[in-house]
């Protein structure tokens, strides 16, 4: 059975070139870059080379990159770090209802510490209203944190417009770009960002490494105090292999961003149109056009998402329902919920996250298999059998 991996928004395999770049740093060049001897000298240069590659992908100065262990750490460092450093200037934070748990939970924690947080709603396409955001600003607002691309639906927020608003009001602006990076062009200057979090394992680098862009002059309290690594913004011995891998992955993403995006968009659209055509009463969740090129979130009414995933899995197809890290918790996705999707429709939402190595054959395989799965589950579903009756009742 051919395995088809379409859960690249959850995590990606390490790209072969990334693996190759990392390998020498585990056993051969393993020194601590802070050391004076050969083992350290070898790695110091690699550390800074990786920093430059990450900086190039988002158009910042290498000194503005802080290496972290993951996207969640970056989000927490940005949000708690700025909140603590600016506490004397105000206690109000603006974010959205559809952020990743790393942002939402950091904000909930700050609420317990006396901060006030505005969670902006989204419309039925998952889109944010920039005017509403501007209207939420008070003279106590110290931070705006809005994700670049939503992990569940792929909806892209108008980051440049938000950046202009933030700059106009002189408010620090953080974006969680974990899903955006390597998939759409990201430029911290154009977007007038102050902070931006990325994670290696979403773009073919390994798990265990990420980065936070911190604009020069933006002060933030570290999460992890200790040694002087990362200009005192993040202590701990550098994860050299991971950092080298992140550098290589960023370099590769820079090199063919547009090509990959175009190719994945074609595949995604093929999948989307094929499924909508083959399966009645299905719908796409998220914005029709302002969307990551690789992401499709689609619902098939009357059935439950996990059951669909299991049947797909049995045929070797890996997809997900909602955010992977939420799949061990109950209830519906807070993202689909916030869009006001009907609960039964929401419960059947499946996310496909295409990756650079997916092919047209992969898409066709899904198109061949999935309609049958939906049919089988609908045949089993009491709601499906009652739908005629319900409609009759509604019409009578």
């Amino acid at each position, binding site marked *: 059975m051919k395995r088809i991996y379409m859960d690249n928004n959850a995590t990606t395999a390490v790209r072969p070139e990334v693996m190759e770049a990392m390998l020498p740093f585990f056993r051969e060049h393993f020194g601590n870059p802070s050391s004076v001897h050969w083992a350290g000298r070898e790695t110091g240069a690699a550390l800074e080379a990786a920093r430059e590659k990450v900086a190039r992908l988002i158009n910042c100065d290498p000194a503005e990159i802080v290496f972290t262990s993951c996207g969640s750490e970056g989000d927490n460092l940005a949000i708690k770090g700025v909140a603590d450093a600016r506490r004397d200037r105000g206690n109000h934070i603006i974010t959205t209802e559809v952020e990743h748990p790393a942002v939402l939970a950091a904000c909930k924690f700050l609420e317990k510490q006396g901060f006030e947080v505005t969670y902006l709603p989204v419309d039925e396409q998952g889109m944010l209203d920039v005017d509403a955001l501007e209207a939420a600003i008070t003279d106590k607002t110290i931070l705006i944190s809005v994700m670049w691309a939503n992990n569940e639906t792929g909806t892209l927020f108008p980051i440049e417009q938000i950046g202009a608003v933030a700059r106009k009001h002189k408010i620090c602006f953080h974006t969680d770009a974990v899903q955006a990076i390597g998939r759409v062009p990201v430029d911290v200057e154009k977007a007038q960002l102050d902070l931006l979090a990325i994670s290696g394992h979403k773009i073919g680098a390994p798990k265990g490494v990420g980065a936070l862009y911190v604009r020069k002059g933006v002060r933030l309290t570290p999460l992890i105090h200790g040694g002087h690594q990362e200009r005192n913004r993040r202590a701990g011995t550098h994860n050299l292999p991971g950092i080298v891998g992140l550098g290589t992955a960023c370099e590769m993403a820079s090199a063919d961003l547009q090509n990959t995006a175009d190719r994945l968009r074609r595949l995604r659209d093929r999948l989307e149109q094929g499924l909508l055509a083959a399966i009645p009463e299905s719908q796409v969740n998220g914005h029709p056009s302002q969307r990551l090129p690789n992401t499709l979130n689609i619902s098939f009414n*009357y059935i439950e998402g996990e059951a669909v995933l299991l*049947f797909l899995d049995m045929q070797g197809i890996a997809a997900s329902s909602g955010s992977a890290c939420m799949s061990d918790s109950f209830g519906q996705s807070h993202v689909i919920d916030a869009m006001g999707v009907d609960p039964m429709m929401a419960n059947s939402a499946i996310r496909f996250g295409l990756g650079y190595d997916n092919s047209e054959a992969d898409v066709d395989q899904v198109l061949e298999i999935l309609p049958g799965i939906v049919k089988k589950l609908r045949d*089993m579903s009491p709601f499906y059998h009652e739908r005629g009756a319900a409609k009759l009742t509604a019409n009578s």
Partner: protein
Amino acid sequence: MYSDKVIDHFTNPRNVGEIENADGVGEKVSSSCGDRMKVFLKVEDGIIKDIKFQTYGCGAAIASSSMMSEMVVGKTLQEALDLTNDQVADALGGLPAPKLHCSNLAADALHEAIKNYQAAEA
């Protein structure tokens, strides 16, 4: 995550469907996750002759439904009433903790169907 038995029952669920003119019909909706099961019974001489179900829910809910249905065909009503949700989960070789509540549908829906039958008989 799931045992082989769960996967088997989920992949090839037994007794899916509806019985026209069923002797008893019952259903149960999970308050925690919205999963829903509907049970149809054919009863002869106090024995469950046929059972069909419709289930809306995750893999665990579907597998529990199927397993339950297999466990009670040919059983007396009393035996069926004595069946517990835990016994269904055990027969499946156990379920992951966060999924246990999904197996709490099957015996409950069965009992509703039996009560429905008994009320009609009385």
